[in-house]
């Protein structure tokens, strides 16, 4: 990857990291309600994968989806406004942290029932084929999702119909609090299942944005060419607990430490240095990111609350919500 592109990806990752930090702080200030599942540590997967996709491709993500929403065109302001229950939020404050969606840029949603979006992604890929486009669809999901039935059904269907869809597992070693190894029959929960669907199953360092970009690009090319779906397992780690209420004490200190040293931002910075990008260019990117996020926080803070009656709209395509005539 050339330096300018990598610098841009780095900056995107910093924006995600900063936005999540802001979300965390706003939570503590009581300005974000409900729950959040921070993706800090997972940034390289979203940013690297997005870099390999076309603007008209489709992305489906999970409740841990801030990084995907932003990598896929949602602004920090839209995201934070959503988390802060503002009318200007990405989903008009109807979705919340777990459902960030920006359909206009192909980010077709964050889903909070584990695994449920995998068949949807297969369906979007099927649709692309039916409409004769060469779009592809990508579903991101966690290691825990590999043990639910929808995973199996989606992969088999995608394989049988040779659909242009990629299944990208963000393996962060844990479901909520339980180590994935304790509840999974194979060592690599996603990649080791690929032979059951007769599709490629690859592994990648999910914290290396360049490696992710390259892996996704190769599989995307294949899918776009009509060679069918693939599974990609990206190894990563979350910097925080599962959700805001989780201090993550179940993780061995040594393991946490090791992974914190394998931070996607550090890895990207290292690569930038190798490519000869001067320190101050990186610092400038950091500052731009910080600035964007600070402005986003301010804008979201000042945005209006939703009209309570908006709760009764948007059920139906005509905008209404009546169930009787």
């Amino acid at each position, binding site marked *: 990857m050339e330096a300018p592109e990598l610098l841009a990806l780095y900056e995107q990752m910093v924006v995600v990291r900063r936005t999540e930090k802001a979300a965390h702080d706003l939570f503590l200030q009581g300005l974000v309600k409900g729950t959040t599942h921070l993706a800090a540590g997972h940034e390289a997967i979203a940013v690297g994968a997005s870099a390999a996709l076309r603007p008209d491709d489709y992305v*489906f993500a999970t409740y841990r989806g801030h990084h995907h929403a932003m990598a896929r065109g949602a602004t920090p302001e839209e995201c934070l406004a959503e988390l802060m229950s503002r009318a200007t939020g990405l*989903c008009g404050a109807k*979705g919340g942290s777990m459902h960030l*969606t920006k*359909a206009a840029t192909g980010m077709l*949603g964050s889903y909070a029932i584990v695994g*449920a979006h995998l*068949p949807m992604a297969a369906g979007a890929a099927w*649709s692309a084929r039916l409409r004769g486009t060469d779009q592809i669809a990508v579903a991101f999901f966690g290691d825990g999702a590999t043990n639910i039935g929808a995973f199996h059904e989606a992969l088999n269907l995608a394989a049988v119909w040779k659909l242009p869809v990629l299944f990208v597992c963000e393996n962060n070693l844990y479901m909520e609090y339980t180590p994935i190894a304790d509840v999974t029959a194979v060592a690599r929960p996603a990649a080791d299942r690929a032979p059951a669907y007769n599709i490629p199953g690859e592994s990648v360092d999910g914290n290396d944005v360049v490696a992710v970009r390259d892996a996704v690009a190769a599989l995307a090319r294949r899918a776009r060419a009509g060679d069918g779906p693939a599974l990609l397992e990206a190894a990563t780690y979350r910097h925080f607990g599962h959700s805001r209420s989780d201090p993550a004490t179940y993780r061995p200190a040594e393991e946490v430490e090791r992974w914190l040293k394998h931070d996607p931002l550090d890895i990207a910075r290292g690569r930038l240095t190798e490519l000869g990008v001067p320190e101050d260019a990186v610092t400038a990117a950091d500052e731009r990111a910080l600035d964007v996020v600070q402005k986003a926080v301010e804008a979201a803070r000042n945005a209006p609350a939703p009209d309570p009656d908006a709760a009764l709209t948007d059920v139906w*395509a005509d905008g209404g919500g009546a169930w009787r005539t």
Partner: protein
Amino acid sequence: MADVISYREAVAEGIAREMRRDAAVVCLGEDIGAAGGVFKTTAGLFEEFGPRRVWDTPISEQAIVGAAMGAAMTGMRPVAEIMFSDFLACCWDYLANEIPKVRYMTGGQVTVPLVVRTANGGGLGFGAQHSQATENWALTVPGLKIAAPATPADVIGMMAAAIRSDDPVVFFEHKGLLASKGPPPPPDHVVELGRAAVVREGADVTLVALAAMVPVALRAAARLAEDGIEAEVVDLRCLVPLDMSTVLASLARTSRLVTVEENPYQGGWGATVVSVVADEGFGLLDAPVRRVAGECVPLPFADALEERVIPTVDKVVTTVRDLTAY
């Protein structure tokens, strides 16, 4: 077109009409292609439209409905078949948590124009896991439209409306009606969703029925007429949108209400109808409201047992007689 068309044929005809007018309409489901479906309700579609528009699937209800959802969000109008309505339980997450909510929870960013068709209801001796009337399951979920036609013409007209709808529709085809026949509707026949039909007029009592219970109510009405009791029969056609205006208008004429439901009494759709009536139509009522509904047990296999569980003409007649004596 022939003089009469069966309900079964009407399903395929209804889908075919929409597939002809709109290339975005595609079908998927188990054995729906060359085999024409287990109930032959997709017979001829594969021959006319080919494998790019009529897709056989694995036994993967979640993938069927989930893929339909993804396709609907991206420009297609999928018509997914779930073979028996009991099996909706195997993909209930999609019906309950995904399809009806995605538009709302994205603040209106996406639409999900899909139809989930399914063979519903009992009376055929298929036992506990293949006989349920599950339209009330769908009623528990805001965000789904629910269609359940009673005649071949309505099958075609409501199928048109369902497939053209930008909202998700669960379309219940009643197994007990598949062989029934009726006049075929004219081309481009569309029955707007959410319009009940008064299928028999009468001044003494209103019977509100759906799908296979419509002919049961009509036969009961004919028997009651011999006793001088004139029953008005309302075919609800849809549960959502629920046409309470037509029910309340009928009640204003008759002052008495009986629902005729195949689903179990507990949690049945008639309860929702009755609760609207007990509120908004309270002043219209001259007598208690009764529900002739399925008994609150699973469906048994043997005919003699199944008849004890599902509403019959006799049960409706007895209930109405009793009520008009109130």
